[in-house]
């Protein structure tokens, strides 16, 4: 069985400050990991993905994430957030070649002016 845990349901942060959204996963086989962003009343958009290779993955809008196998984590980071980054962020996992993806319950990022 595979699972994804997003440790924070809400993260408030001041504009231009750095942010880290935490994600831990559980899987007995190799994994593919994703971060998605959802703006209000919209669908989810792929931010970045880890399939293999370099453990530091860069995505759109200045976000990056680091795959840590020993810690079973895939935390999302941005060095300086903008008001437009206010959204909900979902960590997701695909393991064992299954075509289904398991999603975390989401973290709401609120950027404060």
């Amino acid at each position, binding site marked *: 069985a595979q699972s994804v845990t997003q440790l924070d349901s809400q993260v408030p942060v001041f504009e231009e400050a750095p942010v880290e959204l935490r994600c831990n996963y559980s899987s007995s086989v190799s994994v*593919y990991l994703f971060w*998605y962003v959802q703006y209000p009343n919209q*669908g*989810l958009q792929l931010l970045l*993905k880890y399939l293999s290779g370099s453990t530091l993955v860069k995505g759109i809008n200045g976000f990056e994430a680091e795959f840590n196998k020993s810690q079973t984590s895939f935390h999302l980071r941005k060095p300086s957030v903008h008001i437009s980054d206010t959204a909900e962020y979902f960590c997701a996992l695909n393991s064992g070649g299954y*075509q289904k*993806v398991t999603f975390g*319950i989401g973290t709401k990022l609120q950027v404060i002016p």
Partner: protein
Amino acid sequence: DVKVTQSSRYLVKRTGEKVFLECVQDMDHENMFWYRQDPGLGLRLIYFSYDVKMKEKGDIPEGYSVSREKKERFSLILESASTNQTSMYLCASSLKGGFGGYTFGSGTRLTVV
């Protein structure tokens, strides 16, 4: 611009009605998925399809059915709508294997009264 299109953004239906939610993708993706999204519960998989005319149950299939007569179209059917099916419904598609991640539609917010 490749995309997944859901036929309605907002829908209001009466209890007991049969409801059809349509989803069309133009990326020639093999896989298509229906999720519902509720506050605090994240995304829950209702049904998915790996190919035309095939379907598999997800985590919460009760009260729903699906149809995939053509590769690009995946329909979700609420056989007899109930108030507990009021939710945001998200359609997604992906390439075979799912390694590229999902492409989501904008969602349909369904209210059953």
